[in-house]
């Protein structure tokens, strides 16, 4: 790095660019989301047909205002709503960090969803047993069980990648489906609440609860912030983090530089899986406290969007998670008030990824010139076999 690049004005510009593109991406996605809401609103068509242009346009306005208005009030309208938004953000922070860590290590963990569910299974298994344990032992034990399950499951994908070259993307996808089926089987078998009438696990014992302290906001949220800081410290301030990032940017150079890439790959995936496990465990112990089928509503896939939006940086992931947690939680209100399906958030999320992954589109739309070095694609481009 030359002196010039370190100069404050350049740094400000770079940071500006780093922040501006994600913000414009979210804004654009919300605008397009608004178009989709209007375009699928039959009231708008009726208004245009019957009342002409003026009435039609006002119907368009009403449609958007009601939708985004209810979303806004549902997410930050009251203290209770704010706490709900933070509750929704908590698993996102963990899951987003999981994907971000894998990105930093040059791996793409598409299996967060499966690791999360497996972790919840392990946590619920431990958490619903051992009534004699005090919470100081039971709670950490339950969380650790989840983390270990996630780490082992993800670590397997990392091991296969390092040892045989089997691509982690296809393996983690396959492993997701194995977990779904395994969970189905377990919830009707050894994990089922006796007598087993429906696929629901026994409840977690109070000694393993993550306590709620502000409406439904539970200790998992501060824990998530602490973990995010820990991940930042690990990635950027320790030797392990340096090794992970080096393998991520250039595995060959890392190998020649004396880094054991096999070990680092397994470790990266295991760390990612442990974070996925935390996402599941905190949601289980803080909110649901029981495992039923359909526990995870796609946290693992949303996490990919969050890691990209947060540029695989822990702080960015936290901010992105807060944003999408808020949107998700507001969307629930929007669904009940304006009967707009919450799936609109998935659409917005997909659009955000598009704009983040192809910033050229955003630059073109808003005539923003590329400043400094463009943070290129976060992941190495690889074929299945390499």
């Amino acid at each position, binding site marked *: 790095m030359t002196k010039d690049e370190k100069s404050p004005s350049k740094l400000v510009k770079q940071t500006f660019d780093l922040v501006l593109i994600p913000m414009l991406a979210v804004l654009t996605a919300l605008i397009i989301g608004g178009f*989709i809401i209007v375009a*699928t609103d039959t009231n708008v068509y*009726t208004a245009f*047909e019957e009342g002409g242009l003026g009435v039609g346009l006002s119907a368009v306005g009403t449609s958007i205002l009601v939708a985004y208005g209810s979303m806004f009030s549902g997410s930050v309208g009251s203290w209770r709503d704010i706490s709900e938004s933070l509750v929704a953000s908590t698993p996102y922070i963990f899951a987003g960090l999981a994907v971000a860590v894998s990105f930093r290590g040059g791996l*793409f963990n*598409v299996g967060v969803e499966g690791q999360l569910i497996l972790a919840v299974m392990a946590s619920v298994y431990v958490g619903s047993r051992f009534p004699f344990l005090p919470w100081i032992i039971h709670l950490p034990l339950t969380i650790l069980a989840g983390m270990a399950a996630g780490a082992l499951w993800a670590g397997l994908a990392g091991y*296969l990648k390092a*040892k*045989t*070259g*089997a*691509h982690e*993307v*296809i*393996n983690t*996808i*396959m*492993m997701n*489906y*194995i977990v779904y*089926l*395994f969970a*189905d*089987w377990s919830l009707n*078998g050894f994990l089922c609440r006796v007598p087993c009438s429906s696929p629901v696990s026994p409840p977690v014992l109070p000694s393993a609860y993550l306590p709620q302290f502000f409406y439904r906001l539970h200790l998992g949220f501060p824990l998530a912030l602490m973990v995010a800081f820990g991940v930042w410290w690990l990635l950027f301030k320790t030797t392990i983090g340096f090794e992970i990032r080096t393998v991520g940017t250039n595995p060959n150079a890392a190998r020649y530089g004396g880094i054991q890439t096999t070990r680092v790959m397994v470790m990266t995936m295991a760390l990612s899986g442990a974070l996925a496990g935390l996402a599941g465990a905190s949601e289980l112990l803080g909110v649901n406290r029981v495992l039923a089928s359909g526990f995870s509503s*796609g946290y693992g*896939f*949303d996490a*990919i*969007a969050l890691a*990209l939006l947060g540029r695989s940086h822990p702080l960015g992931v936290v901010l992105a998670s807060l944003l999408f947690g808020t949107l998700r939680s507001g969307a629930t209100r929007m669904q009940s008030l304006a009967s*707009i*399906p919450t*799936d*609109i*958030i*998935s*659409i917005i*999320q*997909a*659009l955000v*990824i*598009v704009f983040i*992954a*192809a910033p*050229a*589109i955003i630059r073109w739309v808003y005539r923003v010139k590329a400043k400094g070095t463009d943070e290129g*694609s*976060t*992941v190495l*481009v*690889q*074929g*299945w*076999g390499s």
Partner: protein
Amino acid sequence: MNDMNLTLQEKRNARMGVFFLAISLAIVVFFALNTPAGLTTTFGLNPGAATNAPQLPDVPVPTASTIWSLAILTAFIGGWQLAKGFKNSNIALLFVVLIFVLAFLTWAARGQSMNFLGIVSASLLRAAPIAFGALSGILCERAGVVNIAIEGMMLSSAMVSVLVASMFRNYDALNPATGHPLFPDWFATIGRTLDSLNLSPAVPWYLLIGLLAGMLTGGLLAAFHAWLSIEFKVNQIISGTVINIFAMGMTSFISQRFLQPIQPLNGSGTFTSLPIPVLSSIPMVGPLLFENRFIIYLLFILVIAIHVMLFYTRWGLRTIAIGEHPKAADTLGVNVNRMRYINVIMGGVVAGIGGAYFTLGSVGRFNKGMTAGKGFIGLAAMIFGKWTPFGAFGSSMIFGFADALQQKLQIFSAQVPIPSEFLLMAPYIITMVVLAGVIGRATPPAADGVPYEKD
């Protein structure tokens, strides 16, 4: 070939031989020793109730001795493989696996009867969407573009095809005399005119339009994938993930806003069985292959067509070239990125047919998330079939068979203590095993997933 390779080959052959012997032992331990004496297994050889082909008599076999002979046969193949080695050990492997399945079926249905051809026929129906996905993957990846968005393309196409087909089929229900018509008058007129022509009961015109709409949807999403990954060099896995998330959200959104409240928009009917005159009267083969729905024939045609196009035409050879070594192809005057666009869009169209299969080809209505990962299994089938159309179709049949079998085994759940979930896991586990190179090795096109940049 140097010595190193030879020993590797020998090692692999030896490993294969030991594997065969292990299978033989497994047949003995799990099936033969668990079979009480004196039972008979009856195999049915007629898939449907009424077919053009003559009804075949059921085949009763003595359970225990059949299983023992199958075990001995496997042991013999294993011994031969160890001692002499088969020229093509993969064929031997396939054979051994088939024997194992047969032994398993004989054991599972001990003392009862099982409609064998019925399972095979059901396998085909369950394999079809997987095979469409796999063919779509082949078209994209042979040209060097990884496409994990097949799932999303199929899901979108499943919804769009049923939506469009329902619009055209139910024009009257959607165009009530009172209230607000959803569509203008001329729309209903088109529908009435085409209906009056009475073209084909097994392949109704509105389903064909729906199918075309589905293909278009797949093609458009694929064009978007190609645009992102070629024009902007977006990581192809991220681009694919985007499309999957988008498709999941969009289909669910539209479904909740339109398909669920307005039922006539979500009821297209399905293609019905279309027996091919002479061929369908052949015993066993006829009802299996030539008495199917239109969309299944489309699959057969596509498997053969893509095979021929890929390996015997200029387009195919160019496709393989840009997937293996784009720079060399470019030097010889092939427009790499244009070829990639064309291939990916074609792949999307094939995925679109696969999506339409879920709705128009089987249930006639859209349900949220109904593709349930079949697109991803399609990718697995593509890998397992080593990026060849026939290989992919064969793998899809294996995966479809696992699916059909778990369904069938629920009848025998009293005497077969295997949870259906574990059989359903088989495709995923097999794929991981193959990818890891434990048995056989799957090598993708060399430039798969790598954007091409001119220097």
